């Protein structure tokens, strides 16, 4: 049996395992180990179980993963999200839908110091969701806004997804972060447009807020100061060469740690922050170990190269290849977690994209936006479930209804990025 055939059989087996609710990390590890054994031999397959995980877990480049999570969790414990939302709410004052705009803006700003969409959605929804509902917002708009707003965390740097993409494809982490800024801000802007249009079409979804004076608006801006400070420190530090993107994560975590201490984080909250960080990190590293073992198998099966040859043989143009890949991501995004999807698929599709002549950094941004869609589309939509946890009384269908305008705006953003790659590459 050829290595390629074994490769396809093993991947088919992996999809069956995943569908049977086998943890994604274990599915990748089993497939990698069994496939490698079938193609090479048992003893070499055993060897990858020490060299693979040992080298990956002691790889300095992966150290930002827990640090970016820690940074977001400390920010959450420091109650920075409440102050941020309050400031943004005052800024939008009496506008109809102003609180939804404040929520999505707060999510965007919170994303600037949090590398995780789930952390962003969880932190902001605890603060903003009750406020919006108490002020007469429809449950669908309120919950949909926060579920979608949380996805900004995956694009606006620092982002764990961009970091992992950079590590998998051996791109510069700094370049990936810089490339994420404009698409992230564009996403924020388009979400605001989506809210404005939704409220204009259906005014009953959102009541006008309380008007605020210019003085109140200016005072409210102080909630932004810690975020702007940490973000400017991180991105400025990377840009000016004071520290590497890898070190920036720890520096950022230390900054939010100090802010949390100043704001009275107690020992219990500190321990909760550590526990939360370790749990999310363990989740990601379980998948990284699985992906590492799976990666060895991919190399020996030469599936990626065969796919490239197959696509070349079909005579498909570069954009046909791109759309096929993006369609695959949209479909997978409906059933799979975003980080899992990146770790599982990027090693397979990346050679295809390289062969099609696309810029790897630009493709990373496009991929992450597409993956981001999966966070708010049924049936998996992780951010939707986060909102459901915060507000169990809102039916899940209502939340999915609420995210529709944001899904449309994400698709518009994707089209803009495909038409104008400079939006991603302009800052590099």
């Amino acid at each position: 049996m050829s290595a390629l055939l074994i490769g396809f059989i093993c991947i088919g087996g992996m999809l069956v395992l995943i569908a049977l609710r086998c943890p994604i990390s274990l599915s990748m590890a089993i497939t990698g180990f069994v496939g490698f054994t079938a193609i090479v031999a048992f003893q070499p397959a055993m060897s990858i179980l020490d060299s693979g995980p040992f080298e990956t877990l002691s790889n300095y480049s992966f150290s930002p993963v827990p640090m970016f999570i820690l940074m977001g969790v400390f920010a959450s414990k420091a109650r920075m999200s409440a102050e941020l939302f309050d400031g943004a709410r005052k800024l939008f004052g009496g506008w109809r839908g102003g609180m939804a705009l404040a929520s999505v803006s707060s999510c965007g700003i919170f994303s600037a110091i949090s590398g995780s969409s789930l952390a962003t959605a969880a932190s902001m929804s605890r603060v903003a969701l009750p406020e919006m509902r108490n002020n007469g917002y429809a449950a669908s708009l309120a919950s949909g806004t926060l579920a979608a707003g949380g996805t900004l965390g995956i694009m606006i740097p620092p982002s764990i997804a961009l970091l992992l993409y950079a590590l998998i494809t051996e791109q510069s982490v700094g370049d990936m972060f810089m490339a994420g800024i404009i698409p992230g801000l564009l996403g924020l802007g388009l979400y605001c447009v989506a809210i404005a249009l939704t409220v204009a079409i259906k005014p009953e979804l959102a009541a006008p807020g309380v008007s605020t004076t210019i003085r109140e608006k200016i005072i409210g801006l102080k909630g932004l100061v810690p975020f702007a400070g940490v973000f400017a420190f991180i991105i400025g530090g990377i840009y000016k060469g004071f520290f590497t993107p890898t070190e920036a994560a720890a520096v950022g975590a230390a900054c939010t740690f100090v802010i949390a201490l100043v704001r009275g984080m107690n020992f219990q909250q500190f321990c909760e922050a550590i526990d939360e960080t370790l749990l999310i990190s363990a989740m990601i590293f379980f998948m990284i170990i699985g992906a590492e073992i799976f990666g060895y198998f991919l190399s020996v099966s030469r599936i990626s190269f065969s796919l490239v040859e197959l696509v070349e043989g079909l005579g498909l143009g570069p954009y046909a290849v791109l759309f096929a890949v993006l369609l695959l991501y949209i479909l997978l995004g409906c059933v799979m977690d975003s980080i899992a999807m990146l770790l599982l698929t990027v090693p397979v599709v990346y050679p295809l994209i390289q062969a099609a002549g696309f810029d790897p950094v630009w493709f990373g941004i496009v991929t992450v936006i597409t993956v981001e869609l999966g966070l708010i589309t049924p049936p998996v939509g992780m951010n939707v479930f986060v909102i459901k946890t915060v507000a169990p009384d809102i039916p899940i269908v209502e939340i999915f209804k609420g995210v529709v305008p944001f899904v449309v705006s994400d698709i518009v953003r994707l089209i803009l990025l495909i038409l104008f790659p400079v939006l991603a590459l302009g800052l590099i």
Partner: protein
Amino acid sequence: MSFLSRFVLKLSHVMYRISGVLLIAVMFIVLGDVITRGLFTASKGALDYTFRGGVELVSYGLLFLVLFALPYVVCRAQVYVDLFVESFNQRFMSILAAIYTFGFCLLGTAMTIRFIEASLRVAETGETTQDLLIPMWWLYAISAIGTAVLALRALFEAIEQFNHKEGIK
């Protein structure tokens, strides 16, 4: 069995706490590295508090913080796809969950065997890390402890799931 199970749970919890300490330690080591390097550059070399081995401390700190965190959260820290499972009955789901958790036991066991073998191999050659000259066999041996506890914890979790005490979450 239940005494052993409780002991492994306690042990994994202690390791989880150590992992938390390592998390904070890694943060401060990187911070120290950045600050001392900044001072060195700003003072044009007059203030040299830079230290060797920062990268190694962070790298191996990360290794142990991950390997020590995994056993305690072996079932909770997993990502699943809930696509077709609603039609399965609870008992079948529990058996599936037990099989998968046992898969982590096998993975942990295989990794432990390989880490012990690697530890013995590098102990013979006397291999050390580049900057801090830490014997590599220590690093493999400590890693083996993490994966061994992962294997044991997964084994007891799998038994519990099979007995349907916990069910599937």
